[in-house]
């Protein structure tokens, strides 16, 4: 089984896997999102305390949870890339990073929308929003570090280290921001954190979470396919796939290192 798993270190195999998985993620994403959002925004009973404005949680909560989840997935990709040196793991990391960052931004944006009717201001330094903001900076850090390197393999390793440092810090940041918030909390802030949620409200929320997760997967797979093609542009398998005929490189007369009896064709 390990040889099968290890075969995905090759970009060609990983590309094949992405192509297979893509339609499934797309279907699940579209169906869940349509069902979940219409149910949540339209049909779920309105909250007795917050009225209809609470409905934004159907966007805010999934995006917040999955922004965190995407970071963890990114860090796992980083770990696989660093420890087992899979190029494809780094490509995955690059694919999911901006998606996660946008998710974080969505959660901040919708969180702020939620806040306006609740607290009367567009922004408030509560524990959750503050943590999400810091998460956004962690994402931007990984993305910037990756972009700063010319050699993408080196970039992957460096950004991978940063992603792993970040993932270790996320629980620490969470705990400290929660604690900081309790210290400085004014008396008038209501506890929005973890409401005990009634069942008819819960189902659309779960469906939305599934939908968002599938959506993230969908976009990540598309991006990953692009990244693989971009990085492997010069390889024969890419040329073959797109039907491009490449001229064979002429071999020089000297003894070529690393070459036994194999003809080394155009690369």
């Amino acid at each position, binding site marked *: 089984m390990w040889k099968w798993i290890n075969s995905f270190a090759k970009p060609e195999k990983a590309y094949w896997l992405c192509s297979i998985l893509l339609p499934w993620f797309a279907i699940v994403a579209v169906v869940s999102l349509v069902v979940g959002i219409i149910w949540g925004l339209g049909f779920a009973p309105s909250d007795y305390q917050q009225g209809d404005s609470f409905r934004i949680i159907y966007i805010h909560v999934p995006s917040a949870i999955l922004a965190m989840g995407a970071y963890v997935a990114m860090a796992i990709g980083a770990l696989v890339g660093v420890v087992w040196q899979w190029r494809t793991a780094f490509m995955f990391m690059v694919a999911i990073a901006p998606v996660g960052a946008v998710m974080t931004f969505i959660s901040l944006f919708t969180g702020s929308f939620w806040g306006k009717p609740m607290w009367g201001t567009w922004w408030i330094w509560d524990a959750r929003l503050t943590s999400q903001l810091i998460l956004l900076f*962690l994402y931007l850090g990984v993305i*910037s570090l990756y972009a*700063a390197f010319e050699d993408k393999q*080196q970039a992957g390793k*460096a950004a991978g280290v940063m992603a792993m*440092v*970040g993932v270790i810090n996320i629980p620490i*940041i969470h705990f*400290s921001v929660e604690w900081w918030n309790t210290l400085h909390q004014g008396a008038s802030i209501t506890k929005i954190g973890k409401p005990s949620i009634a069942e008819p409200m819960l189902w659309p929320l779960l469906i939305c979470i599934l939908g968002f997760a599938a959506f993230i997967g969908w976009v990540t797979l598309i991006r990953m396919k692009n990244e693989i093609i971009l990085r492997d542009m010069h390889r024969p398998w890419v040329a073959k796939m797109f039907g491009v005929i490449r001229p064979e490189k002429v071999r020089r007369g000297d003894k070529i290192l690393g070459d036994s009896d194999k003809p080394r064709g155009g690369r």
Partner: protein
Amino acid sequence: MVGSALIAIFKKDISLAYRQLAELMQPLMFFILVITLFPLAVGPSPDTLQRIGGGIIWVAAILSLLLGMERMFRDDYADGTLEQYILSPTPLYLIVVVKVLAHWLMHIVPLFLISPLLALFLNLTMDMYVALMLTLLLGTPLISFVGAIGVALTVGLQKGGVLLALLLIPIFIPLLIFATSAIESASMLLPYHQQLATIASLLLISVALSPMAVAYSLRVSQN
């Protein structure tokens, strides 16, 4: 033998820092300047300054330490000494510990010496001052050890500077929260063992884990 090689590297780094004292003074000057900006910006009322004083000093300390952190591996990387360290009998992660310690020492001692003056500038009480010193003592090595990871990752880049700050500042936020909370508790004459213990445990974790991460990052930069 490994021990004496490490001590030699430590001594070498300290003496090299001495030969470049002007460069060491720059982050210190920055530290003082930033702190000076605040009374000018928010008004010199002693009460206001006292309330935000702990926070100001800590933010200024983080920024100035970030400025000075690039020195840690920059010269050794540029002149190839780092390569020789990698190819020596001493494990790289131990060399990293020694270098980080030397760097911390050279940067923190001036900070410590200047802090009574700053406590005066910001009207901190004696209790707050003690809390400040304790949090600096425990927190700045944490900044150095964790910061070293960022420095090691960016040492080969020509751009560097601001990217390092962008990477590291989010990581230092918990430390900032606990340190300033300790100073605030001190101002209200409340105990702050909890905050100090948390900082100390973060420090221990980072001392245990970061040398390996730094060594790996240095080797990635060598590629």
